[in-house]
């Protein structure tokens, strides 16, 4: 199917970093099953660096590919860099997404942020609330 780029299909067929991290330092879950996509990201953090990351996704091909790509982009990176991950960067790394699938890359960005926020909250780390806007993703969903 030519709906997706080769890159998207590659990440969809061979998703990187699928799975769960037991006792993860940060877990983020965004989206909802009613809308047809949920992403969950698990982080292992040491000295402000993401030493391991795993994901689970319920959703379409581009949702799975976006989460796979996002985990690759933040693995081994300092938290500050992970927080700078944008949906645009994920989309570009995938060689583009169809217009109606851009929200999948938005979900991936928010899943990463939500996992970092969880890590901050769990560890009592003070942060600027503006870093995390609440679930803007669900705007596309009217249930």
């Amino acid at each position: 199917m030519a709906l997706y780029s080769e890159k998207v299909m590659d990440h969809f067929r061979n998703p990187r970093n699928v799975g769960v991290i037991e006792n993860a330092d940060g877990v983020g879950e965004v989206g909802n099953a009613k809308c047809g996509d949920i992403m969950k990201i698990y982080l292992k953090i040491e000295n402000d660096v993401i030493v391991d990351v795993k994901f689970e996704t319920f959703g379409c091909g581009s949702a799975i590919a976006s989460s796979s790509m996002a985990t690759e982009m933040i693995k081994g990176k300092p938290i500050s860099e992970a927080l700078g991950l944008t949906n645009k960067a994920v989309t570009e790394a995938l060689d583009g997404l169809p217009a109606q699938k851009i929200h999948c890359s938005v979900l991936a960005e928010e899943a990463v942020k939500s996992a970092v926020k969880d890590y901050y909250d769990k560890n009592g780390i003070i942060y600027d609330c503006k870093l995390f806007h609440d679930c803007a993703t669900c705007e596309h969903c009217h249930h």
Partner: protein
Amino acid sequence: MKIYADNAATTKMSRTAIEAMLPYMSEIYGNPSSLHSEGQAAAEALSDARERIAKRLGCTAREIIFTSGGSEADNQAIITAAKMGEKKGKKHIVSTAFEHHAVLHALEALEKQGFEVTLLDIHDNGIVTADDVKNAIRPDTCLVTVMYANNEIGTVQPIGEIGAVCREAGVLFHTDAVQAAGHLEIDVIKENIDMLSLSAHKFHGPKGIGVLYAKKGIILQNLIYGGAQERGKRAGTENIPAIMGMAAAFDEACDKIEANSAKLCKLRDRLIEGLLSIPHSILNGDAEKRLPGNVNVCFEGIEGESLLLLLDDKGVAASSGSACTSGSLDPSHVLLALGRPHEVAHGSLRLSLCEENTAEEVEYIIEAVRDVVSLLRGMSPVWRDLESGKKEFILK
């Protein structure tokens, strides 16, 4: 292995249909409206095709017109009934919640023009009853339109009984028989059908050609104005090659209804049995009152588009009613009408077989679906929550 199991979307043209078309592209290419012999040869073929199709439906040749397909026939039938009703001050239409969009969107357009539409709910088995229709008919009802068989879940409606109810109430009855024509026996007289739509590409004929049957006495409302073709009710030089292909495909399909149905029901039932052996799955629509080739199942914890992509990788062409594949925010209106919650409807799979599919292919499909469902469940956070008991299964 390459397996096409999306025959409800469209079918491969049969050899018979292709061969019936060829002479009308290179030899008998005249315009049936022309007086010369080239034109008259085409006119003769056209009239022959019309006779043959009419005979199969149990009506007369004068009662059918050729259209560009099912969508156009549906639109013209509905708009015709609306105009007729409007003249008598009747502006209420009865239909169902699970019609094809060719019907639903035509009805929505009429609602904007002041018509009132009652969309009947379907029962758990994907069927509306004649009683449901009877109770919905009002003194100002000008049309009942109920599909013969549903394109997603394949359920066959009690058309004869609904026809009888409409006849008794004196209300026009249209049926979208796009999925049924060539697959089920249809008799417009016995079933009291006033108008019927069909489309050639669903029974191994060409795309872009269909039929609207309208019982004698119904004055069709034009959608396309112009020349005097189709008794002035549908302008445009007739697509003779497509019409000849459709007539041939329809004859062939109708001759084989019994044989195909016997073969397909067996394949279908085995496929359903195999798919339902995957845990937390459910069949959509009645197990028996369904099209011979239709299988539609929901799997909890996964999403349909990723299911289709992975099946495509394994060589299986199928379809789904998930939002991602419907191109809208909501999953299929048919599955929602059936009462499936959103999260379950997203995980639907439709496999529609034709007589060329084999028992080996069915076994291959079952294995392929089993593998793909388990792969996707393995990476689904929804499935994890269900399995760990954090959330309750909807499909037991």
